[in-house]
């Protein structure tokens, strides 16, 4: 797959990463090279193969549905980029989204 400029910009938008024109150009060739390299997987016949998402065979363990943590707003807010009282906050844009 050859990645064109519009695709780079589309993926970058989905990934919420800003790319300028120079970066888009570099990324176009880098992403194309990586994707062409991974496409050697097409040589493998996987028609009757189940996909694997986890190497562990055992089912997830269950526990009692009870509160085991929490009640530590100060801990959670300690690294807040910006805060307003007991909340972490960010600029208000709601009026621009409509």
């Amino acid at each position, binding site marked *: 797959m050859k*990645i064109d400029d519009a*695709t*780079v910009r589309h*993926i*970058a*938008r*989905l*990934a*919420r*990463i*800003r*790319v300028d024109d120079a970066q888009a150009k570099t*990324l176009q060739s*880098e*992403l194309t*090279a*990586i*994707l062409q*390299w*991974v*496409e*050697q*997987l*097409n*040589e*493998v016949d*996987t028609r009757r*193969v*189940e*996909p*694997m*998402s*986890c*190497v*562990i065979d*055992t089912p*997830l*363990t269950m*526990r009692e549905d009870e509160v085991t943590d929490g009640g*530590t707003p100060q*801990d*959670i807010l*300690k*690294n*807040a*980029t*910006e805060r307003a009282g007991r909340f*972490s906050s*960010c*600029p208000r*844009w709601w009026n*621009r*989204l409509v």
Partner: protein
Amino acid sequence: MSKLTDLTLAAARDGLRARDFSANEITKAHIDAIDKGNEALNAYILPVPDMALRMAESADKNIAGGDAGPLAGVPLGIKDLFCTKDVRTTACSHILDGFIPTYESTITQNLWDAGAVMLGKLNCDEFAMGSSNETSTYGPVINPWRREGSSTPLVPGGSSGGSAAAVAAKLCLGATATDTGGSIRQPAALTGTVGIKPTYGRCSRWGIVAFASSLDQAGPLTRCVRDAAIMLGVMAGHDPKDSTSVDLPVPDYEAALGGGVKGLKVGIPKEYRMEGMPEEIEKLWQQGIEWLKGAGAQIMDVSLPYTRYALPAYYIVAPAEASSNLARYDGVRYGLRVPGDDIIEQYENTRSEGFGAEVQRRVLIGTYVLSAGYYDAYYLKAQKVRTLIKQDFEQVFEDVDVLLTPTTPGPAFAIGEKSDNPIEMYLNDIFTVTANMSGLPGISVPAGLSREGTPLGLQFIGKAFDEETLFRAGQVLEDAAGELPSPADWWSVA
């Protein structure tokens, strides 16, 4: 007596218990070594000497009171991927500038509960994405090893490059590390240290900054096999906070060391004999085979036909998981925020400034292979190939106990030598990535020197949860190879 920093972790532990020296003394010796040597190596990004001395004091009290844990007073370095309470943790990314966790990762907590002392946080590739430690926002780590007659700075490997360099340069007795595609074993090979990636599920991932959750696993980097056995024994174990950590008893790894390899069936996978493999790697591998034969192992040729597809499949699966895991860094709740005219622009500005080039590349690849229309062709395909890779190993392990392979396709390379070509850099992990894709344990043990005079490693890959066999076989290899020379100390200032 030799310098306290020259001791192995095992010898230091025994000396501390015998009160030959105190935790305070051995900790001070390491703080001094870091003071003198870290500027040149850039292994530590945050030394914590005051904290280390406090922890040493408490270890000395416990030792005096007859209440010494298995690592009482042993000074360690911690990869910056592990969250450490009240100590800055950034995964070496600009996007986590100044992040100070209010909690401790399970693995580091296990180490502190055992009495270990933290010397500081160690450099690594940004979000553990790299094979040379050149993607860190704190700059590259320099390998203590140099080519014979040269002062060209070499990479220590990655992503756990700071851990490997600190251990090799004796700036700690051992270090924590993580391995998603080879990030423990490849730097171990490039710095003449021992590194084990245990079976997926053996160690808790709780409190470790996530890269690719189905592949990430933590382990130790040390100067000998015994030290790795001791450290992994403390790090491993079930953790209710990580549902993928397995509830199995942790064996006494140190007790397994003397087991030898008599009668052990060692498989030699022919697919690891890659086209264009340097002759010295081939020779080292053959030497390893001879050593094991000499120790009574039974050598068997085996085949893992899907080996060559492991790395391309990895470069779909790992970026896909990374793009999802790294979605949390949005500049809203914590970490870096770069303002914009609307919320989308703030996300985009933050992530574009906060993530380095390699992380951006992987997030974009991951986003692409998960996006509508490409999911089946790339992501699902890679997951199916992953099944085939795991089945390869399952079949081979019906006939053999362990596999012997080279760890890396070559020795340490120069800073900047491979950083222009992502795929060439990715090929560093060609022999290590299969163990991550299949969840199996792998250990790298120093086995000799390249013709440039820099270290090379051999790798054992074992059955799931059979780290004991890796330690047994690793000990035999280490004994046969004999002690490698230490790198000459060019990094310490008077």
